[in-house]
């Protein structure tokens, strides 16, 4: 049974249709990518999902029913627009936010030191939030998102303002949470992170769903019969079944004629006596798929 079911939700602000008939499901124990360009309707969808905004139409089921105050305690949310109380000490700020998630003071004081230690913030707990760097504030906000051990984690651009070390820390943390059976919805523009972390995705553009499904399925759906090769010697001027050879730096991309499969291309290469070092079916990256789908949606007749 899905943890989150979004069914045909729509939302209009003035004359702008921010979300238009969007549907998706998120399952327990998966990292679900909510993708889309700026202004595509991702944040509005998340706010509807969290009951911050009411949908004009459609329905959201979360944790087995509609949202209520008790369920808010079972959800951790890291919004895109980060924010903490600037004029209070870090510890005070985190204790208050955890209290609002239904935690008891004793429970917070028991768990908080571990989190502060893990995120390398223990030495800064008495400092005012405004005295912390942007990256530290980002980590502090992650603590506020996770400290109450939520069943659902909704996290918008989790890697912004983080250095590579902390990016890895957050990635490990998300994987750890997924392995613990948590449901994670992640919004990000960083497609390499999507490829590394997400099990399934939905791509929204202009408020509408353009792509939805398993990451591997989508990549296969967009894959062509093109192959990437690395050779020890040169390539002959012409190869049977190959329409074009593109030099892409360390590798060469072979674009086949219509109907020619990768296997047939491999046979051609072997027959031609090419010294193959690597041979790889060129599955498109999520970046390429993202750009292709969004551009096609913007210019459908091109």
């Amino acid at each position: 049974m899905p943890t989150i079911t979004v069914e045909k939700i729509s939302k209009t602000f003035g004359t702008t249709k921010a979300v238009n008939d969007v549907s998706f499901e998120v399952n327990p124990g998966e990292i679900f990518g909510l993708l889309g360009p700026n202004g595509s309707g991702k944040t509005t969808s998340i706010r509807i999902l969290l009951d911050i905004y009411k949908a004009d139409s459609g329905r959201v089921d979360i944790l087995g029913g509609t949202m209520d105050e008790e369920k808010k305690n079972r959800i951790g949310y890291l919004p895109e627009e980060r924010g903490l109380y600037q004029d209070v000490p870090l510890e005070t700020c985190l204790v208050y936010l955890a209290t609002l998630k239904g935690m008891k003071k004793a429970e917070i004081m028991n768990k908080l030191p571990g989190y502060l230690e893990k995120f390398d913030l223990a030495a800064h707990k008495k400092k005012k939030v405004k005295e912390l760097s942007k990256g530290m504030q980002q980590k502090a906000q992650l603590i506020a998102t996770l400290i109450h051990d939520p069943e659902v984690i909704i996290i918008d651009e989790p890697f912004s303002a983080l250095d590579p070390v902390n990016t890895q820390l957050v990635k490990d943390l998300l994987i750890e949470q997924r392995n613990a059976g948590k449901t994670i919805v992640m919004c990000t523009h960083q497609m390499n992170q999507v490829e590394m972390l997400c099990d399934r995705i939905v791509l929204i553009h202009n408020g509408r769903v353009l792509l939805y499904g398993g990451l591997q399925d989508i990549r296969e759906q967009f894959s062509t019969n093109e192959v990437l090769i690395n050779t020890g010697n040169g390539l002959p001027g012409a190869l049977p079944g190959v329409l074009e050879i593109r030099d892409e730096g360390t590798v060469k991309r072979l674009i086949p004629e219509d109907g020619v499969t990768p296997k047939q291309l491999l046979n051609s290469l072997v027959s031609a006596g090419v010294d193959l070092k690597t041979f790889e079916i060129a599955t498109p990256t999520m970046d390429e798929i993202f750009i292709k789908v969004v551009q096609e949606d913007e210019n459908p007749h091109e």
Partner: protein
Amino acid sequence: MRKFWKVARHEFLTTVTRRSFLLALILVPLVPALLLGLFNLLNRGNENNLMEIFAREVANPLPFGVYDQSGLIKDYPDWLTKGALIEMKDEATAREAVSSGRLQGFYKIDANYLESGRVVLIKPEISMFTGVAQSEGVTDLINYNLMGSSQDLYLRYTNPIQFEASPINPETADTRDTSNMANFFVPYAITMFFYFIIIFSSSMMLNSVAKEKENRVMEVLISSTDPLSLFVGKIIGLSSVGLLQVLVWLGSAIGLMRVAGKSFDVLRGIVIPWSSLAWAIPIFLLGYFIYGSLMAGLGAISTNLKEANQSVFIITIPLIFALLSMGQLIQAPNGTISVVLSLVPFTSPIAMMTRLSIGKVPLAQILICIVLLAVMAWLIVNGVAKLFRAQTLLTGQKFKIGSFLKTMFAR
């Protein structure tokens, strides 16, 4: 709605533990207390109180001479002159006494005084204030002698009536001791105090909401609790802060008045109708609910604190109007304008407190004031709650009083 207590607790604790708040809470009564303690210390061992010492220091101990050419001055009674005026037989003796430092100077009363009224003061230093400052004693002496040296007649002349005012309605009588001028300043002080405290407390509400928007923490908050709980929690938490401030400052004022009365005659006779001021608690709280809610509404729709502060004036206009009407309220506390201002909910938190500080206000008027304040507070709190919607809190717009009121009172 269950989380509003958590919000209230947080708002109360973070505000009262803020250094600037604690300094204001403690220093406002502490500074006058320290000054008072210092004066008391300086005054220790002196038989006379401090004011008398000051007065004595300023006064010049040397007397004046009186050389009367008219023959009018027959008598120099001690009870009148207190040794400050001494009869001089001739001008040369008077001049010599001045030169030798036994007199400050001397008055020469013209031989033709009854026609001319001419009196000349002769002294080493003459300034433009000399005539005003130093003619009082000799005037009294001449008046006394003009009345044939009759003490009774003179005293009746100087104090011709024993004025008493009897109010038609004793219930609304001014309870202050009119013989002490300091009592006239009490209503001004109380009016200013309540004006300041309502503005200060309401501004805390504005700051709290506007800063949460500015710091972008609002989205985290409303994903954890509903906006109404947030609003109600803030109202309760920050009104408690305001109440704490009122109690501490008023309590300190009572204590200081009592202690100060021992050192300063001018403060000894001040009458503050504390029993009437007990009404201050409900009136302040309801006034705070109105203005605090309006400020919260302003914070909710504004983009940031700077923009919100630019519009505060519009909301506080009624309070400023009540403050500007302070003269009318004090002159005629039971006049029509005063009664109207003390019943209209937007001006009554100040106007009613001014009237209560002057004298007794009919109980019915106090109760009507409180009921009207309560009704208005309920309407405003409910209206502002409509502004505490996620869409408003997560965006921002320019403050326009028309659309503000329209949203608040829309069905």
